[in-house]
C-alpha cells in the first residue's frame, strides 16, 4: 500500500472519554461504521499491531517459532486497546488477559464475567417483562443468545446493549482483518523481493519461499 488512505476524518475519533464511566455520555458516540473506518484508527491499530507482534516475537524462545495463537491474541489485544476501553467486548478481552482478573472485574462494575460459568435462571425470564414485540419471539431470543456467545464478554447482556456491542465488534473485526491482511501482504513482499520494491502483489509466501530458498 503506497498511498495513505484519504478518508474523511471529519469526526474526531479520539474523544477523551473517561474509562471509569461505562454508562452513557452526554454526546452520543459516533456510529461504528465511521468510528472504525477513519484513517487515524487504521494507523493507530496497525502501529499497535506491529508493536504487539514484535513483542511477541521477542518473547518467543530462539528455537521456537511464533505461534499462530500468539499472533491472534496479540492482534485481539491490540484491537481492544485501540477501542480505548469504551466497549464491553474490548474490556472483556483486556481483562481476560490479565492475571488479576478478579480485582479488575470488580472495578469494571462486575458486569463482565468471562470465566464464571454461573448460569442464572433463563435470561428470557428477566427480559420478557415489558419488551418490544419482536424480542418476544423464540427464534429471536435464541439468536440473541448465540450472538452473545460470539461477542466476548457479552453473554448476559440485555438485547439493546448486546446489539450495540455487536455492531461495534463487527466494525472492529473488519478493521482487524483489513490491517492484518495488509500487513501480511507487506511482509510477503518484503520477504521475497528486495526492500526497495513497494508493490504488494497477492503472492503465496510459502510457494515463493520454496522457490527462493
Amino acid at each position, binding site marked *: 500500500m*503506497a498511498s495513505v488512505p484519504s478518508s474523511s476524518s471529519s469526526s474526531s475519533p479520539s474523544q477523551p472519554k473517561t474509562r471509569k464511566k461505562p454508562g452513557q455520555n452526554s454526546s452520543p458516540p459516533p456510529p461504528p461504521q465511521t468510528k472504525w473506518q477513519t484513517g487515524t484508527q487504521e494507523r493507530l491499530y496497525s*502501529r499497535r499491531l506491529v508493536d504487539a507482534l514484535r513483542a511477541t516475537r521477542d518473547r518467543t524462545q530462539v528455537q521456537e517459532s511464533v505461534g499462530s495463537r500468539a499472533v491472534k491474541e496479540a492482534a485481539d489485544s491490540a484491537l481492544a486497546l485501540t477501542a480505548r476501553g469504551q466497549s464491553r467486548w474490548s474490556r472483556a478481552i483486556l481483562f481476560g488477559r490479565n492475571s488479576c482478573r478478579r480485582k479488575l472485574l470488580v472495578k469494571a462494575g462486575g458486569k463482565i464475567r468471562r470465566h464464571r460459568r454461573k448460569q442464572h435462571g433463563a435470561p428470557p425470564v428477566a427480559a420478557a417483562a415489558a419488551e*418490544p414485540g419482536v424480542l418476544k419471539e423464540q427464534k429471536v431470543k435464541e439468536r440473541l443468545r448465540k450472538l452473545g456467545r460470539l461477542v466476548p464478554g457479552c453473554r448476559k447482556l440485555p438485547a439493546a446493549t448486546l446489539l450495540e456491542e455487536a455492531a461495534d465488534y463487527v466494525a472492529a473485526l473488519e478493521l482487524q482483518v483489513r490491517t492484518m491482511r495488509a500487513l501480511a501482504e507487506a511482509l510477503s513482499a518484503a520477504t521475497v523481493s528486495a526492500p526497495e520494491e513497494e508493490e504488494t502483489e497477492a503472492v503465496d509466501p510459502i510457494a515463493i519461499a520454496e522457490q527462493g530458498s
Partner: protein
Amino acid sequence: MTTSRSSITEAEINELISKLHALLPEARRRGTHRASAAKLLKETCSYIKSLHREVDDLSDRLSYLISSMDVTTSQAEIIRSLLR
C-alpha cells in the same frame, strides 16, 4: 423514552437492528431494509464467525511470515507499515 417498566422502546430496538444491518456486507450489496430481526441476527452471527475464521487464517499466515523473517527484512517491514 421509558414506557412502563422497560428501559428500551421498540423504536430503539429497530434502530439498533437497522444499524447492525447496515454493517453487514449483504446489506451493502442489496441496500434493502427487508431483513427480519431473526434473519438479521443469524446473518450477523455467521458474519462474525467468518470474520473470526479470517483472523485465524491471517494469524497463521503472519506467524509463518514472522518466523521466517530476518533482521533486515523486519526493519523494512516496520518502516513500510508505518508509511501506510
